[in-house]
């Protein structure tokens, strides 16, 4: 059990990193990576939502959708669960941790349309993970996202001072940077954990 969970965790953070090998959650990755502060805030929020969404969607799928033959409703149910979760977290943070709430600002509602969150939940179902594996995959997938967005933001801060060809200014050069990071993350793909 422990070995299996470790494999899932390392796989989600390094080998099958959500950004660099699965292309999930590119929009916030590109949008919120201008400074390392907001990047880490966004990464943490996403990690939290991904873990929580995995924990909530598993029982819903297992106890409500599957016994009643409603599996075809999965996508609709999941996205509604995620949207309401994000709404709840927003209200909770506003009441209890106003400083974090203002720091995250507009990015919080944007997590709803982050494909990494819906992606992790759908993958949990596809791989028929159990409850614990689902939560571990959700949290570590989020940590992989955090790692990716933090590294990217750190590089991008330096990129501000670089001279870039006119047509590549702004978005394209950021994509090239992300491509190079993806290239370095490919090094992990040979990593085999415990055979």
């Amino acid at each position, binding site marked *: 059990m422990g070995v299996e969970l470790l494999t899932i965790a390392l796989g989600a953070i390094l080998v099958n990193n959500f950004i660099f090998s699965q292309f999930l959650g*590119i929009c916030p990755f590109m949008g919120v990576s201008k400074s390392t502060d907001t990047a880490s805030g966004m990464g943490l929020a996403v990690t939290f939502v991904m873990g929580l969404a995995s924990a909530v969607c598993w029982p819903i799928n297992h106890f409500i959708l599957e016994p009643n033959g409603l599996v075809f409703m999965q996508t609709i149910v999941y996205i509604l669960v995620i949207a309401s979760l994000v709404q709840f977290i927003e209200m909770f943070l506003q009441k209890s941790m106003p400083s974090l709430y203002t720091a995250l600002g507009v990015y919080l509602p944007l997590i709803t349309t982050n494909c990494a969150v819906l992606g992790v939940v759908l993958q949990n179902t596809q791989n028929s993970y159990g409850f614990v594996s689902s939560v571990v995959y959700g949290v570590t997938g989020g940590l992989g996202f955090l790692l990716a967005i933090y590294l990217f933001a750190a590089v991008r801060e330096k990129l501000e001072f670089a001279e870039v060809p006119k047509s590549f200014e702004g978005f394209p050069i950021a994509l090239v940077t992300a491509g190079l990071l993806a290239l370095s993350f*490919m090094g992990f793909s040979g990593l085999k954990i415990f055979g």
Partner: protein
Amino acid sequence: MNLKQQFKEGLITQNPVTVQLLGMCSVMAITTSLFNGIGMGLSVLVILTLSNIFIAALRKIIPNKIRIACFIVVIATFVTVVDLLLQAYIPDLATNLGVFIPLIVVNCIILGRAEGFCYKNGVAASAADGVFQGLGYTVILIVMCVVRELLGKGAFGGGILNGGDGIQLFPTHFAALGMALPVGGFLTLACVIAAMQYFLSKPKKKSEEKEEVAK
């Protein structure tokens, strides 16, 4: 709204991928063969058009405060329909695209058009907008697929031509495998967007020069 202007906006000046920078996850993830690209592009086109029509028709009933949730339910319904249809009739495509079909729900293009266009415009204009924006997305997907397939595998038209193998233009061992891997997705999209920025900045410069001359 005239059709010609909408057509131009969808394909070039307001292209959802290269100018509005929306829906990039799927653009980079599935553009490994022409078959996937066309399939994904058409799926998004159909879903976008249907949800545009529906949301434009319901725009006076949907309360302002919960509009995003309403949009998502409408979109998720059409995505589910397309997902089930693909699984039934084109199972190859459904396996290739995998999780990216249900993920069309959170594709920012569709939600972006619902919020930015359909909520303010009529049914006919929204339908046209859906078709043209969907076409803009499909064209970019096809360009990405052709480039990545050619450089990454030395082939053209994988999954469609030549019994699914595609036409081999040069031997695989001369190809840069990296272009078919995630890295290639980032680099190709970067080049496509850079090319777009270059071409869009050209006419602007000309008009600026003309203005200066006029002064």
